C-alpha cells in the first residue's frame, strides 16, 4: 500500500483526514508515468470533488498511457499551518508525492474568490508564486475554467492559460511537451513559445500591455510575430462523442455534490445579459439522448451513487428532456436511486415530474425572476413574465405545494427604487394567489415565500461588462429598501427575506474586471495571511482594502468608473466567438429596455455561428 505524505500524528489531529489520503473508488493509480499532471481545484476537497470539469479532464488525461493525472485540493487552514511549520510539500492525492516534481500543475478557476488559494497551493507546493521566477525544473503552471476568460489579474502567477473547453487541444499540448522532452530540446521558454502557437493557449509573459494616462489599456501586443494576436476560445462541437467519465471518482466523505452528474448540454439559448456562462459557452450544444442513457447506466453502475442529477445552464431547454427524465425515472425507481432535478421552468410538465420524484410537502418551487419589475426584467433580458410566474405558482398550489423560493439580484443597471419595491410586491402577489387558490380546509398551514437577493457583479464578455457598480453601503441600502417594503406587505407573515453581504460583491467585481495591476494586491493579501476568501469565516475585507491601498490601486477605477464604448478591456484579446459589437449592441438594447429573442426563436448574430454547429444550425440539415 502507498505510503501517505502525512504522518498518522498529523492526520489524527486535522479535521477530516479523508481529504488527504486519496484511495477513493475509481481514482487512478499508475506505477509512474512520463507526464505527471496535478489537477487542482483551489478550494477545499468537498467543494473540489463536486466539480464536473475536473472529473472529465481527469478521465481524459488518464486515458493516455503516458500521462498520470492526480488531484489536488486546498489543504484546510488547520493542515496548512502544519505543512508550513514542518515544511511538508503539497502532494498529489493518488501518488502522495510532491507536485513540485510534476510536469504540470493545472488549476481550474471557477470563481474569483479562489484567487488567494491559487497562491496557497503554489506556496505549499514550494513552487515560486510568480511565473517569472520559475526555472526549467519547476512544473508548468496552467489555468483554465470560467475565470480564465479574464486571466489578467492572475496572469503573473501562471505560465499559461487554456482558454475554452479542454477536450480539444490538451492532447496536442501534452504531445508537444513529450516530444520536446524526448528530444531533449525542452526548456520552459521554448516549450511555452511553441505552446503559444496552439489555438487556445495564452502565455501571458509573451504579451505586453501598455496603458493610457487615465489607466485604461492603450495596447495589448504579442512579443513575437509567430504567436496569435488574439486567443481563440476552444469549443468541443460534438458533445455526444466527446469524452465523459464512465467511472467518476467517488469520495468517502460527503462532497457538496454527492451524486452522479449527467451533463446534458453546454451553452444556453437564453441570452440573459448579466450571465457570463450564457455568453462564453455559446453556441448551445446538446449531448445526444442515447449517449446520455448509456452514460447514466454506466455511471450509476460504476459508482453506486444513490442520486443522479442533470447538469446544464437551462435544463428545460434540452430538446429531449421529457424522454430523458422518463427514462431516468424508470431506471432509478428499480434501484431506489433519487433524481435531483435542476431548477426547471415551472409548468405542467415539470410539476408532474417533480411530484413523482420529490416529496411535495417538503420541496419548494424555485423561480429566478432576477428582477422584481417587468421593466428591469426586460433590461436583463430575463424572459420570465409575471404571467409565467403566477401561472406556474397557481398550478403548483393546486398540486399541493406551498413553498416558493424567489431569487433576485440587486444593483442591476438602471435599477430604481420602484424596481426594488417590486420584489416584495411580487412575493405578496404570489402569497395572495395561494390564499385565493387553495381553500382554507385544504391548506397545509401558511404558504412560505422566501426571497433571496444577491448583488449583481458585472462580468467580462457580457453585455453588462460596461456597467458600473456601487459602494458596499449603497448595496446594503437597497437590501434595506426591500426589507422595509416586505414588512409593508399584507401577506408579510408568509414572506421571508435573505440577502448577501456586500463586501464580497465589491471585491468580486474588482477581480472579475481587473487588469494585470491587481496581481500585486492578491499577492499582498496572501502574504499577509489571507486565503479561503470564498469562506465567510476567512474573508477579511479590511485586509483587501489595506492591500489595494498599499499597492496604489484605486477601487473605484474598477467598480464605479463608467466605461466608454471604445475602451479596450483587459480581456478583449480573447476571442470567445461572441463579438464585442454584439455585446455592445445588447448593452444599448438593455438600456432601451428591450428584449432580444432567444437563439431558437431568432438568431441575433452574436458571432457564435462561426463554430459551425449547435443551436445555430438546428433544423438546417
Amino acid at each position, binding site marked *: 500500500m502507498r505510503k501517505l505524505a502525512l504522518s498518522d500524528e498529523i*492526520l*489524527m489531529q486535522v479535521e477530516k483526514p479523508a481529504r488527504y489520503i486519496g*484511495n*477513493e473508488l475509481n481514482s487512478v493509480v499508475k506505477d509512474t508515468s512520463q507526464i505527471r499532471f496535478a489537477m487542482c481545484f483551489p478550494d477545499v476537497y468537498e467543494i473540489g470533488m463536486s466539480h464536473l470539469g475536473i472529473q472529465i479532464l481527469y478521465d481524459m488525461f488518464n486515458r493516455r498511457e503516458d500521462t498520470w493525472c492526480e488531484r489536488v485540493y486546498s489543504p484546510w487552514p488547520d493542515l496548512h499551518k502544519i505543512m508550513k511549520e514542518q515544511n511538508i510539500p503539497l502532494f498529489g492525492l493518488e501518488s502522495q508525492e510532491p507536485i513540485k516534481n510534476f510536469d504540470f500543475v493545472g488549476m481550474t478557476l471557477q470563481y474569483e474568490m479562489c484567487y488567494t488559494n491559487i497562491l496557497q497551493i503554489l506556496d505549499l507546493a514550494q513552487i515560486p508564486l510568480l511565473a517569472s521566477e520559475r526555472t526549467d525544473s519547476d512544473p508548468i503552471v496552467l489555468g483554465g475554467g470560467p475565470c480564465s476568460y479574464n486571466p489578467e489579474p492572475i496572469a503573473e502567477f501562471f505560465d499559461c492559460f487554456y482558454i475554452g473547453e479542454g477536450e480539444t487541444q490538451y492532447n496536442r499540448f501534452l504531445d508537444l511537451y513529450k516530444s520536446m522532452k524526448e528530444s531533449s530540446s525542452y526548456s520552459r521558454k521554448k516549450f511555452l513559445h511553441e505552446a503559444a502557437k496552439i489555438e487556445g493557449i495564452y502565455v501571458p509573459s509573451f504579451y505586453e500591455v501598455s496603458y493610457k494616462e487615465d489607466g485604461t489599456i492603450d495596447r495589448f501586443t504579442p512579443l513575437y510575430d509567430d504567436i496569435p494576436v488574439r486567443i481563440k476560445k476552444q469549443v468541443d462541437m460534438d458533445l455526444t462523442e466527446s469524452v465523459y467519465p464512465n467511472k467518476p471518482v467517488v469520495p468517502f*466523505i460527503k462532497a457538496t455534490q454527492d451524486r452522479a452528474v449527467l451533463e446534458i448540454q453546454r451553452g444556453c439559448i437564453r441570452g440573459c445579459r448579466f450571465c457570463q456562462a450564457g455568453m462564453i459557452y455559446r453556441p448551445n450544444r446538446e449531448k445526444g439522448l442515447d449517449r446520455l442513457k448509456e452514460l447514466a447506466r454506466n455511471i450509476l453502475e460504476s*459508482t*453506486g451513487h*444513490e442520486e443522479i442529477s442533470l447538469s446544464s445552464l437551462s435544463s428545460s431547454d434540452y430538446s429531449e428532456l421529457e424522454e430523458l427524465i422518463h427514462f431516468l425515472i424508470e431506471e432509478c425507481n428499480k434501484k431506489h436511486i433519487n433524481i435531483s432535478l435542476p431548477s426547471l421552468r415551472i409548468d405542467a410538465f415539470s410539476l408532474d415530474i417533480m411530484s413523482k420524484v420529490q416529496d411535495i410537502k417538503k420541496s419548494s418551487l424555485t423561480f429566478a425572476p432576477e428582477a422584481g419589475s417587468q421593466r428591469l426584467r426586460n433590461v436583463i433580458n430575463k424572459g420570465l413574465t409575471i404571467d409565467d410566474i403566477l401561472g406556474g405558482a397557481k398550478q403548483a398550489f393546486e398540486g399541493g405545494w406551498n413553498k416558493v423560493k424567489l431569487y433576485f439580484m440587486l444593483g442591476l443597471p438602471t435599477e430604481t427604487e420602484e424596481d426594488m419595491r417590486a420584489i416584495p410586491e411580487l412575493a405578496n402577489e404570489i402569497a395572495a394567489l395561494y390564499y385565493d387558490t387553495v381553500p382554507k380546509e385544504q391548506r397545509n398551514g401558511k404558504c412560505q415565500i422566501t426571497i433571496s437577493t444577491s448583488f449583481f457583479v458585472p462580468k467580462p464578455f457580457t453585455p453588462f461588462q460596461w456597467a458600473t457598480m456601487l459602494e458596499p453601503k449603497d448595496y446594503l441600502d437597497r437590501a434595506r429598501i426591500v426589507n422595509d417594503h416586505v414588512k409593508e406587505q399584507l401577506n408579510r407573515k408568509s414572506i421571508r427575506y435573505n440577502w448577501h453581504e456586500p463586501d464580497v460583491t465589491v471585491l468580486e467585481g474588482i477581480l472579475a474586471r481587473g487588469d494585470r495591476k491587481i496581481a500585486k494586491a492578491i499577492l499582498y493579501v496572501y502574504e499577509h495571511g489571507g486565503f479561503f476568501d470564498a469562506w465567510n469565516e476567512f474573508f477579511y475585507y479590511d485586509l483587501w482594502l489595506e492591500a489595494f491601498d498599499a499597492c496604489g490601486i484605486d477601487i473605484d477605477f474598477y467598480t464605479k468608473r463608467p466605461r466608454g464604448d471604445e475602451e479596450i478591456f483587459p480581456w478583449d484579446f480573447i476571442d470567445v466567438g461572441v463579438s464585442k459589437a454584439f455585446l455592445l449592441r445588447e448593452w444599448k438594447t438593455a438600456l432601451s429596455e428591450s428584449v432580444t429573442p432567444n437563439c431558437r426563436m431568432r438568431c441575433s448574430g452574436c458571432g457564435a455561428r462561426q463554430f459551425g454547429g449547435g443551436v445555430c444550425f438546428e433544423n438546417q440539415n
Partner: protein
Amino acid sequence: MKIRIKFRKWGVMKFIGHLDMMRHFQKAMRRADIDIKYSEGFSPHQIMSFAAPLGVGLTSDSEYFDIEVNSTMSSALAVAALNAVMVEGVEVVSYVQLPDTAKTAMSLVTAADYALSYKEGYESPYSAEEWKQIVEKEFLKQPAFTITKKTKKSEREVDLKTLVYDFYVEEQEGKPVFFLKVSTGSTDNLKPELVVSSIYERMGIPYHENAIQIHRLEVYTRDDSGNLLPLDALGTEII
C-alpha cells in the same frame, strides 16, 4: 432474509470514519447488485446496521454489519461480487444468513479482541519480556485495578479488571504487542488503550496515543451458556 457481513479494514482506510464507511457500503451494495431491502416511506434507505463502530485511526480484521435482502446469491458469490467493487484497504470476508429471529449485531456485542502495537518510528519504553512482567505484576496479579473514568458529564471509579477478560504480551518483529480481550458494547464499553495507558500512568511514564496502533481482531457475543462466539458464528453459509 437477514444477512451478516464481516469485513477487514486496514491501511489508509483507518482514516475513514464509521459513518463514511456506512455510506461506502451503501454504494457498494448497489455496485455489487446485492438485492438489499429498503425501508418504506418517501425517502427509503437501505436496511443496514453496524455492530460496533470502529473509531478513526483503528484497523480491524473483524467488522460486522447486518443487512436485510429480498433475495440473495450464494455466500461465495456475494463475497466475490462485493470484493470486485471494493477499494484497497477493505475486504469482505464473510456473508452469512441469520435466522429470521436473530437480534441485531449491535445488541449482541459483548466483547472484542484487540492487538496494540508500536507504530513504525516509535519505540516501546520496555522490551516485550519486561512488559510481560509488568502486566503480570501491576495488572493480572492485582485484586483490582481501579481508575477514574472521566466522561463529559461525570467522573466515576471503574475496576478495569472486571472489564478485561484476557491480557497478554507477545513479541512481534522485535517489538512488544499487547493483546486484550475487553468488554465491548453499549454497556460497559472499554477502550483497550485505556488499559495500556493506565499502566503507563502507574509506571510514571508518559503515554503517546500516536505511538500505538490499535487493531481489532474479533468481536464476540455470548451464547446461552456464556461462551464467547464470533458474531458470524451465528449465521450459516449460503450455498
